[in-house]
């Protein structure tokens, strides 16, 4: 059975490219348009979360905090995929419980390599 990855991004293009890349690599992907939408999609087992930082409703940091306090997603790896490369923002994400940080844009093989590394 394929592992399911939840991707949260307010950009439809980025969600589409993450989904395209991960599906081609054999993963199932659930898309969420912001942090709040992502938290509402935890009914099924999620192997990993890939989230943007700047999103409406609930941003990436809020989503990470929400996931870490959620019983079902407490230990789920979270990769931040963002245009941000600011050290303070990175530190904030790390403190909130993020596992890795990728600056957009990503190359497909790079994203797959990160996912494979994180998921073991």
């Amino acid at each position, binding site marked *: 059975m394929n592992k399911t990855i939840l991707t949260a*991004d307010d*950009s*439809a*293009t*980025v969600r*589409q*490219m993450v989904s*395209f*890349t991960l599906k*081609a690599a054999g993963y199932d992907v659930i898309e969420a348009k912001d942090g709040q939408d992502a938290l509402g999609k935890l009914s099924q087992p999620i192997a990993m979360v890939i989230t943007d930082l*700047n999103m409406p409703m609930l941003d990436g940091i809020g989503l990470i905090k929400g996931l870490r306090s959620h019983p079902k997603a407490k230990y789920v790896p979270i990769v931040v995929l963002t*245009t*941000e*490369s*600011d050290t303070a*923002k*990175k530190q904030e994400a*790390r403190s909130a419980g*993020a*596992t*890795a*940080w*990728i*600056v*957009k*844009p*990503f*190359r*497909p*093989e*790079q994203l797959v390599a*990160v996912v494979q*590394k*994180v998921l073991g």
Partner: protein
Amino acid sequence: MSLARWMRWPRQWRRSSQAAETKKILRSVGGSLEGVSSSTEGVFLQAGERLMSLQTHANEIAQLATSVAELQAGDSGALTVLDEVLAAACQLQKTGHSEKVRELQTQARAIQQAIETIGPAVKTFDVLSVMIRIESVRCEATGAIFVGLADAVTQLSQQIRERIGATAGAAGVLLETISCAAEDIGRTLQERQASLGPLTSEASAELLKIGDNRQRASQATQLLGARFSDISAAVGNIVTALQFHDIVRQQMEHTTDALRLDEAKVNAGEVARLRAAQLQHSRATFENSVKEIRQALAQVEQNAGMVAGELAGLLGISGSGDASYFSGIESGLKSILTILQGNAAADRRLREAAVSIQQPVSEISKTVAGVRTIGIEMQRIAMNATIQATRLEHSGGALEIVALAILTLARQIETSSDTLEQCLRTVREDAAAVGAAAAADSEAEGQIAILRQSAAALSSMESRSKADYTRTVALTAALQREIGETISGFGTQDECLGALDAAIQALQGVSALEATPENAAAELGMSQYTMHSERAVHRALYDAENSSDDVPAESPPLVAEENVEFF
């Protein structure tokens, strides 16, 4: 209104009018940027959807192409077997059984000759029998009667005649059987010499060509791997370039947000100058990503076309799609099979002939044994006649001569019987040897089976390859058509670039209109936006301040080298 106020009024009016104009321009720029963002999103999303379909088709083509290359490279076993069988077929041509069958023919003729020599002896026996009767009559006065002796000679002579008659018939059958086999073998040999040799050489040469091509097939597999690696890299470039829509969208959002801020009202000139430069950067990024997507799509199309071309070369398929490497050898192999089957049939007939020879040989052998016995009996009679002649003293002289003649003839018959038995032994041995050799050559039937099997394997591989190739060509055409539609649907985004140009120009106009020497607004902008790319623009903006504000910032590289960090 005082004079001073009246004097200030035009300036205030101008400032107020200018502020209204600036506000209008900034609002218009903000609106047009929102329009650009939403219109490009649709186009980029559509390209992304197409990309999934392109990837699926490219994967299918890759699988088919790999399958063709593997099929072409993986039939070396069939080729080796074919080569060995053809070499063995050539060897078979050199051996043959014609010499042995010629030897058999010689022996059969010798048998006939030996039989023929007995015929006159039988007639002489008859004469001698008559002579004994005459002598018996002449010596009747002395009381010596040899009628019984004469009867015995006649009787034995008759027995020899009967047996030799039967033997002559069997010898005729034997000679005919052997002659038929010799003719059959001669014809087969001639056919082999005339056709099999050249055909085998031709087929071997074609096999060498196929073998060479198979070696190229493994190299082609690597080439195909490189093509699909290029396609994969191009798809990766598209994935990366499509993400720039999001980056540009965010940059434009930041610009529109900044233009709405109060600061824009106070320091409109500086904010507009900063945002114009940022928009130039966004424009360059956008233009670069559009170019990148179009180029990558064209690269996928080009590589897919090359894959089809390389596969055609691999299969030796001509422009019409009919010929292939295998078709060059196919008819040759069919002819070789026909000849080898003919050879196998000739071998079978020879084996049958070798078996059928045994029967007349056995019959002749039995008869000859009988004749030999009669010869010995005749010698006994001759001895008896000699004794009778000795008893008659002077008057037995003639009988003695007759007895001697009978003895000589009887010995001749014995000798002929010996010769016949020797010939029959040789025939029996030669026939057995021919039968054994023909049975050994029946291995050719096994080789034919292998040849047929290998040829069928090659043929099947060829038709599967061709089917895969045809499917690949059709898929490639569909893929190229789809890419063409995607490129055309994606367009050059000139309208969006034009809208961005207009926005940049409008902001530059505002900057000129509201020229202020302070950089306070720019500092404010710096503190508000933290995106790395935007900082680069800021730096470019201030670094370039002393030279020219009109120089657009360079677009960033597609992917930063170190953009991943694990915590």
